[in-house]
């Protein structure tokens, strides 16, 4: 249970975030301010925001649980699963999107392929974000329930209320600037838990020794590279082909919530630098979210549910005051993820669905209002769908499963779209539809095709490969686009040597 000082810290944090977020309301005068922060933000704020948005309740609880079960190999997601993709995004993709003045990734796909591809991609992301919101809400509620005994629905509704208010009024500027504070608090709280836990287990060497003697299932807990025949979800082949080559790139380059932040940069250097700075910060994330799970193996052996590892460590290791700080850090992760999803989904819906299909040519204030209302509606959907998460044994794996359906095909059409002029609208459309269908098929019949516990990494790779091949074949069979249609949309070495023109 929390002490008085813990309650004070948590409440002060929540109120502080609400006030800080609402402060940025005065900077929102039009839809560009709401969705792109008036293209005025610095790299350090964007970089911190990218990182903190990517780590939330999901990672604090889910990754600690995975580390408890499978060891350090889950850190691949933040190391090799982020850095190479973020560098590729920084130097190749982000400059195209930033120079093109785009609001959404599907907007690029619409210009490169056609409106159908744009709509499918946008609707898919909107559905994913809605499901993701529910997972985030549920993860927070589980932790609050374990730590404080709060009823699950009170936790969900209180989080939704605070985040919804500042996201509704302050737009992406409020989202990014609150993320900056949230990242600082998350790092302080997270590192406090790591250092005290390390002290509790008698230091790093002692931890390695104790875990190694706990049984055969723990012998590879400190191997970041797992053999290809492992039964864990992280064989090195899956990490290389599924994560490094497909999912990481799809996430960092094709994810609206990530890329939209870079589009708020004040100039191209800040846009590129934000990704690289974010990749540097990313390398600290496994220390915060993975190490407590590893140390829980020694402190709390034999837990039936790995997702209980982090809550148990917080309760048993941290003193009053630091529990409140850690709890605020957890809230920070949750709020930063939720506000990102809300704002990005509002952008996707307003720019890719509402503006082209429901009301074209309205004044800017109208679209600003639509974005704000969408934020509220999505919040309600997220709250209503949150109990779905309880049906999945691992929270983190659940969200990866949702993502694996369409990450591969979307990255296939993005990659070919920007690097191969011959790709046509029909190639992109068929690759997207068939690729997503194939991913769903593989997931439904995974017991027949795969030997590992949860093959989402393999599914993303094979659906990417099929989408890639189909895109090439269909493109070669259909009419190619004219040079005029492709202007500024396909990679050219000119971007490297003659910067002003694409």
């Amino acid at each position, binding site marked *: 249970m929390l002490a008085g000082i813990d309650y004070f810290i948590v409440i002060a944090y929540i109120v502080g975030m609400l006030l800080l977020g609402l402060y940025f309301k005065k900077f929102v005068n039009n839809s560009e301010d709401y969705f792109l922060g008036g293209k005025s933000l610095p790299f350090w704020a964007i970089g911190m925001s990218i990182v903190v948005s990517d780590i939330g309740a999901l990672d604090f609880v889910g990754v600690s649980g995975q580390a408890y079960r499978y060891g350090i190999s889950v850190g691949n997601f933040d190391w090799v699963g982020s850095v190479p993709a973020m*560098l590729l995004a920084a130097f190749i993709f982000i400059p195209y999107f930033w120079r093109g003045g785009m609001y959404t990734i599907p907007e690029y796909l619409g210009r490169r392929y056609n409106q159908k591809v744009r709509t499918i991609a946008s609707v898919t992301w909107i559905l994913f974000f809605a499901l993701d919101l529910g997972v985030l809400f549920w993860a927070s509620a589980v932790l609050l329930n374990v730590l404080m005994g709060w009823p699950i629905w009170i936790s969900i509704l209180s989080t939704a209320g605070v985040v919804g208010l500042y996201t509704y009024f302050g737009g992406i500027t409020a989202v990014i600037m609150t993320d900056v504070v949230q990242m600082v608090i998350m790092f302080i709280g997270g590192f406090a838990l790591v250092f005290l836990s390390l002290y509790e287990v008698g230091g790093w060497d002692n931890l390695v020794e104790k875990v190694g003697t706990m049984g055969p299932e723990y012998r590879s807990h400190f191997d*970041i590279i797992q053999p290809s025949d492992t039964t864990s979800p992280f064989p*090195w*082949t899956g990490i290389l082909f599924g994560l490094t080559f497909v999912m990481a790139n799809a996430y960092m380059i094709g994810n609206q919530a990530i890329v939209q932040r870079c589009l708020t940069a004040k100039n191209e*250097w800040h846009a590129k630098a934000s990704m690289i*700075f974010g990749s540097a910060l990313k390398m600290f994330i496994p220390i915060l979210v993975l190490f407590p799970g590893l140390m829980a193996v020694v402190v709390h052996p034999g837990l039936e549910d790995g997702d209980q590892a982090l809550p148990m460590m917080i309760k048993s290791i941290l003193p009053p005051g630091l529990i409140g700080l850690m709890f605020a850090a957890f809230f920070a992760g949750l709020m930063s993820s939720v506000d990102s999803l809300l704002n990005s989904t509002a952008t996707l819906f307003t720019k890719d669905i509402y503006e082209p299909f429901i009301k074209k040519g309205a004044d800017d204030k109208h679209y600003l209002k639509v974005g704000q209302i969408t934020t509220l509606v999505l919040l309600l959907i997220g709250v209503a769908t949150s109990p779905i998460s309880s049906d999945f044994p691992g929270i983190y794996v659940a969200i990866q499963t949702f993502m694996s359906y369409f990450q591969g095909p979307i990255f296939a059409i993005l990659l070919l779209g920007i690097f191969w002029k011959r790709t046509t609208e029909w190639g992109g459309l068929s690759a997207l539809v068939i690729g997503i269908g194939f991913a769903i098929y593989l997931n439904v019949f995974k017991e027949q095709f795969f030997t590992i516990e949860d093959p989402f990494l393999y599914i993303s790779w094979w659906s990417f490969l099929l989408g890639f091949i189909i895109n090439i074949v269909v493109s070669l069979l259909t009419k190619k686009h004219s040079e005029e249609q492709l202007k500024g949309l396909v990679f050219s070495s000119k971007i*490297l*040597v003659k*910067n002003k023109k694409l």
Partner: protein
Amino acid sequence: MFNFDWLSGVSQETAKMIFLGLYALIGFLVLLIPTEYVYEGIAKEDRYWWNNLKLWSIAVLTILGSIYYNF
């Protein structure tokens, strides 16, 4: 085929070298990017070595490589 059975003979040490090789390759490609391009957006008189995004990238890749080398 779906489970990459054809790579089951590759040891963990060899797999680790594949990852380290990948980081080295990415670093090499980053170094090939024209310096003018990585400074785009900063006025010529304000360009200093610490704004060079190639150096940032190499630093990040070096830390990443050391993590994989040690674990």
